[in-house]
């Protein structure tokens, strides 16, 4: 009897190990461990055993049952794993195929430059001021020290609507309007981006409409060295930490002294290349100390207050920074052009 049980165990485990799937395994379970199975059959003959032998044989029978059960369980686990494995293997995909595109647009490069500059100056305590594109002659010219017969008006041929209104030729009228609103009290710290218009035929370097961004600071004791320091911060932020600036005397009616500002060439680092026309320097903006007439006209006491202003063409900055060769690209909006500016820097 004892031997028969051992035999059954060996036989069952042998079958378990040879079973190929869960169904076979289940059949083995039923045939060996079921009520009509051989173990039960063997145990039926227990009545013939002595009282000492019975518990011993009972324990052995349980041992055999347990061994077969755990054999089956182990095998079952194994088979299940294999089944999963097989299923997953069948589900294999080619991970190198392209993903579902998430199509996003992006900022126009001019907005990109403007926001970069705005954010830099906001960080330095400036606010962003905006004004109308159609301006009064007064704000566009007269309040900026350009009376009606001023020779410099030649320099900026304009689109007039009536004798007194025109498309602004610069964003400076926003400065005049902002100063006026301040009612003679400083400090004023603004940055003014916007569209401006000049009577130019559109070609690779001219556009009848373009963007400007100007800055203005008015306060007590604003110095020219402050202008220089501010523009240095600006140049480094926009064109790289290694940049230097150079101020050259110039002339603008609304500033005195006036300077043009060059940044050391970011392409060649100052050694001279095509971008900087072999000079090592690239002109990027005009600036100066606010002309006392402009301060006075906007209600500031020029004895007490001083200020600086600077302004630049956004297209020019973008063309330099990104290497764009034709200003018309900014207004054609070719998606192949726009898509160049997806990358977030």
């Amino acid at each position: 009897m004892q031997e028969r049980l051992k035999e059954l165990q060996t036989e069952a485990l042998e079958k378990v190990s040879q079973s190929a799937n869960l169904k076979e395994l289940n059949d083995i379970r039923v045939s060996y461990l079921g009520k009509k199975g051989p173990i039960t059959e063997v145990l039926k003959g227990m009545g013939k055993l002595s009282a000492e032998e019975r518990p011993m044989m009972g324990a052995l029978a349980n041992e055999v049952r347990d061994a077969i059960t755990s054999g089956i369980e182990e095998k079952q686990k194994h088979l299940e794993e294999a089944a999963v494995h097989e299923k997953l293997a069948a589900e294999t995909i080619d991970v190198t195929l392209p993903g579902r595109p998430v199509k996003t647009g992006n900022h126009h490069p001019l907005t990109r430059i403007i926001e970069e500059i705005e954010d830099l100056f906001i960080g330095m305590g400036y606010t962003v001021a905006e004004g109308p594109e159609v301006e009064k002659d007064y704000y566009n010219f007269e309040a900026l020290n350009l009376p009606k017969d001023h020779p410099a008006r030649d320099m900026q041929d304009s689109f007039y609507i009536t004798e007194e209104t025109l498309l602004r030729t610069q964003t400076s009228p926003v400065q005049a309007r902002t100063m006026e609103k301040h009612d003679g009290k400083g400090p004023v710290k603004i940055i003014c981006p916007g569209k401006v218009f000049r009577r130019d035929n559109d070609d690779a370097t001219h556009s009848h409409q373009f963007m400007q961004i100007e800055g203005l600071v008015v306060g007590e004791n604003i110095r020219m060295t402050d202008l220089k320091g501010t523009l240095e911060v600006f140049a480094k932020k926009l064109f790289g930490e290694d940049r230097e600036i150079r101020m050259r005397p110039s002339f603008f009616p609304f500033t005195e002294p006036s300077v043009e500002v060059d940044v050391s060439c970011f392409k060649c680092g100052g050694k001279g290349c095509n971008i900087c026309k072999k000079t090592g320097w690239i002109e990027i903006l005009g600036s100066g100390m606010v002309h006392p007439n402009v301060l006075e006209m906007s209600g500031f006491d020029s004895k007490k207050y001083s200020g600086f202003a600077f302004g630049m063409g956004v297209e020019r900055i973008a063309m330099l920074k990104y290497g764009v060769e034709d200003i018309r690209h900014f207004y054609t909006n070719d998606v192949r052009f726009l898509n160049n500016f997806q990358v977030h820097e």
Partner: protein
Amino acid sequence: MYVSYKWLQEYVDLSGVSPEELAEKITKSGIEVEGVETLNEGISGVVVGYVQEREQHPNADKLNKCLVDIGAEEPVQIICGAANVDKGQKVAVATVGAVLPGNFKIKKAKLRGEESHGMICSLQELGFESKLVAKEFAEGIYNFPQDTEVGLDALEQLHRDDQVLELGLTPNRADCLSMLGVAYEVAAILGREVKLPVSGVETSSEKAADYIQVTVDAKEDNPLYVAKVIKNVKIGPSPLWMQARLTAAGIRPHNNVVDITNYILLEYGQPLHAFDYDRLGSKEILVRRAKDGEEIVTLDDAKRKLTADHLVITNGENPIALAGVMGGANSEVQADTTNVLLESAYFIGGPVRKASKDHGLRSEASARYEKGVDPNRVRAAAERAAQLLAEYADGEVLEGSVEADSLSVEPAVVSVTLEKINRVLGTDLDMKYVEDLFSRLQFETATDNGTIIVTVPTRRGDITIEEDLIEEVGRLFGYDNLASTLPIGSATPGHLTPYQNKRRMVRHYLEGAGLYQAVTYSLTNELKATQYALEKREPVRLAMPMSEDRSVLRLSIIPQLLEILKYNTARQNDSLAVYETGAVFLANGSEELPEEREHLAGAVTGLWQSHLWQGEKKPVDFFVVKGILEGLFEKLGVTSAVEFRQSEKEGMHPGRTAEIYLSGTSVGFIGQTHPTVEKEYDLKETYVFELSLKAILEADVPPLQYVAIPRFPSITRDIALVVDKEKAAGELESIIKEAGGTLLKEVHVFDLYEGERMDEGKKSIAFSLKYFDPERTLTDEEVVKAHDKVLDAVKEKAGAVLRG
């Protein structure tokens, strides 16, 4: 202004300063040198030759065979094609081995069987600009004066061994429109002396006053008029050095008299005019405003109609010159002129600018008058010209000048404190240093207790206020030498306004949703300006547009976006989404500025989604674009105030357009463009929207408040309603929401069926309704009660039948 380096040396010692170094120094201290040109660059081996013999080429009609002495042992044979070459001329010969501009090398050659050992040159071949070559040599080779020595370097004889600095002058530095002005500037930069030209001439015993009488009626326009009379001039070419200086400055040589007036214009910055005295037709000069309708034929043979805005020089009766702009043909100096009336005058800029602008005539003279000349040089220039006319035209200068003088010139006296100079510049200069700077500029100074008082010479009319003095100090001190600081003082908070902030969000949102930001022109043509306007108004029109396509300001952005889609579609990008934020312009009457409203517009065409290798393609439709806007309204917190109403609009699909309302006011529209528009622009199905950005960004939105997550379960009821096909889902939704009361928290459409299983003219819309109370669990009765109200309402107000 073009400045000859060699000429400049006559006034300032430039030793040790190369033209390039000089250019750099001038640029750094205020006047941009835009270029330095070497006049004889790339030219060598050109000598003065003498044409000993000339005969026609035996085998070519148009060629000449010349025997030319070039200062070598033997004369050489040269074949020359110029029509004006002849025996006895002194010419410029590019000898064998010579190099001409463009790296053109001269070699021995055979032309139609005859040997040619070099080339006889025109000035153009020697690098002269055609427009600067004197008329007599414009069509052929150049002839040197007969006394020129054979064999010498021809370029040196032409004074081309020189460099020219091109100054880019800003309008305030009109003083540098003269060699003397540049000399003062350069002297100040280098800290050297200025040597002024010396004038002085023996005059005849006759008096100018016996020959001419000068009257100025228009004293305000012409405060000083100086006339001199020079008799018995011999018209001929001016000396080569003078021609060379004029050419270097960009002025074409004519004859000695005209060249001398131009030379003085360059040297002193004072325009002069020479009249043929005998052609004046009177012994009188009268300066007055022209009469309306009066006419003059100017030197360029153009007849010009004058008005009272123009100033003229007359002979007492008729105009003989347009003052400060151009002389008249009737009194022009010609080859037979013997007596010259020389005019040196101080004209005010206004009338000169007007005349120059009205007649499209910009001359060297008018450019200088417009910017202002130095009143103190009027007489000196006349004297110097008289001297040169005596010297180079054999003229006899009559004694004295005849003047009409109502001018009072006081040099400006401007003062500034040292403290202010240092405060504005951020420097720490001492008085001695500042005084030194002004003495380098040859400005007289005095100091008084920390104030420097500067007497500004009249040549520097640009200096009138203390800031101008500060600029002089700053630029000569050198901006490179300034420290870098940042403004000090009370801190100001830097920030965007809520509007600016939201506008940035709108951009980021739309870009995240797949739209590219576009920037387009505000100016457009009349049709496009108004085509999709939210509000019909007359567009704002330019007074003088450059073209019809840029003549009015836009009332809508959509047409420009369609233009972008068209452009890209034509370049194989027919699926594209763009948006723009920008102003549109609403006229407000001619006195007022137009109202500028910021709009947001978008346009989407072609495929909205495509996943190529999975074969998925979904074209854009109305609900794609509407969904984008709904998402935007959600971000702006205005969803509950927004309503889309079916509407019709010109240029839009009549069945697929909605007007968008915000709190009951129309703020824009959305829809498909009309198929005829799509055809016109060559577009696939295209959807657009345009909204008043201002309206949606400035809408009243309650401050953000957290709403607790519901702790009690909600109950959902779905209903399918059969209604007339025309019934709008939005209307049903409103009815449901109203009837559902406070317990009904969410309603949304989840199915639409319009198929054949429906009765004719009917459709079925299914809604999902969610009821809950944040404070407690709802009872069944409560929900049933609320839901029954909903069912009653849709039946009563919309004729809806619950679908079985």
